[in-house]
């Protein structure tokens, strides 16, 4: 990894380059997106296939697909639960994922079956070490 990628401290991560944080209005809801490293590797994002609200996913299920100019990448559920909201803004502005992957570029929100499941994920330091080893 030659350049510094952005890895915010209070976020959790998976080895598939998804990030997760708790919704600050509701501890039982997780907000999910893809990391700065992921958006940078993918290049210009041109389309996102998001799940339907209400759909249920287990950890590891394919939930969304992010299409860049060059290729498609799957996004997997980092936690188990139901989709309660998707980021409709990405319909007309998929590039928000490139521009602001940790805020405006969020993908979907899951209502957690197990609120402690976030503890199983990588911390920001853990993700950073993981990237250094890749």
């Amino acid at each position: 990894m030659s350049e510094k990628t952005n890895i915010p401290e209070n976020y959790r991560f998976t080895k598939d380059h998804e990030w997760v944080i708790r919704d600050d209005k509701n501890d039982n809801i997780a907000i999910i997106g893809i990391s700065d490293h992921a958006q940078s590797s993918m290049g210009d994002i041109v389309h996102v296939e998001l799940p339907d609200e209400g759909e249920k996913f287990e950890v590891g299920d394919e939930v969304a697909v992010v299409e860049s100019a060059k290729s498609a990448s799957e996004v997997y559920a980092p936690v188990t639960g139901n989709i309660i909201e998707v980021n409709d803004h990405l319909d007309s502005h998929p590039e928000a994922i490139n521009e602001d992957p940790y805020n405006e570029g969020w993908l979907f929100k899951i209502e957690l079956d197990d609120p402690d499941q976030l503890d199983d994920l990588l911390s920001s330091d853990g993700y950073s070490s993981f990237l250094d080893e890749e």
Partner: protein
Amino acid sequence: MRKTSLYQFHIDNDARLVPFAGYEMPLHYEAGIVKEHLWVRSHCGLFDVSHMGQIFVRGSRVSELFSYITPTNFEDLNDFSCKYTVLTDENSCVIDDLIISKITSDLFYLVVNASRKDIDLEWISKFAGEFDCNVEPLSNYSLIAIQGCKSLDILSNLFNTELSDLKYMNLKYINYKDVDLLVSRTGYTGEDGFEISIPDNMVNEFCSSLLSFDDIKPVGLGARDSLRLEMGYPLYGHELSQDINLAESSLSWIISKDNKFLGYNNLKNISNRKRVSFKLIDKGVARDNMEIYDNNNNLIGYVSSAGYSPSLSCSIGQAYINIDNSKINNEIFIKIRDNFKKAVITKLMLFNPKLKKAS
């Protein structure tokens, strides 16, 4: 992995390098594919295409040779002009697509695809003897493409000569720092532009000098692909291959009337299919090799190349479709993962670069 002479130039310009035809080539630079594509359509892009093959063929019967191994008649061609054509085998299947330039009636200059250059050399050499010709692959020469409406001004400036008298599909020698460079007014993007064959030991300085102009930026192979897709140009290995008969490929304009070339007797659309361009109507991105269906769930073809069009802000591509389903404006369905997404067959050229809008 092979490198062109501009490898360090690519690194210095923050290229994302990927393997292509055995070379490490820039997929894009810092700006990214979409911005680079749009820059070529509005200003000027600099492409390293040194991985491609450059070949001289010499002999008094060189026009006859190429009139035989391509469907194009070269006998009546003016000196210093260029033609886009294909090499076919005896079955009229495509060995490569290429630009052949007649420098004089004894000297032709060819630019061929990187992935086919060894095969092309072998193939041409097979026939060259019969026509008393010598085949000389160039070594130590790079090839760069400068494409976009600002190309003429930039190069006229850099060469200190008025380049507007070099017309489209023509070439000439231009002296630069005491060396004659072969400059052709050709390209693969649909924009006005030039391709320059230049010694390896000069190309870095030349490219640095080019980048001192504000209107030109380096552009990678990712944008090169989306630019040619918008023009409906084929790419060897996708729209053209030895499994595809020239008659299926919607390139009949390159076949010269009455030219009984090598593949002439087998120029037939035996597979009953045709190359078309399409535009995706539903949201999504079509990709290579996806299946195509009609509105009754019948499989009618496959995607040969596809991706995202920055100029049209939608997914576009090319496909081989059964002739009966191949009319312009016909609705087709592309299977993208488990979904059938609606698309429409369009004219081959989806974007008109002169009018700067959908064609």
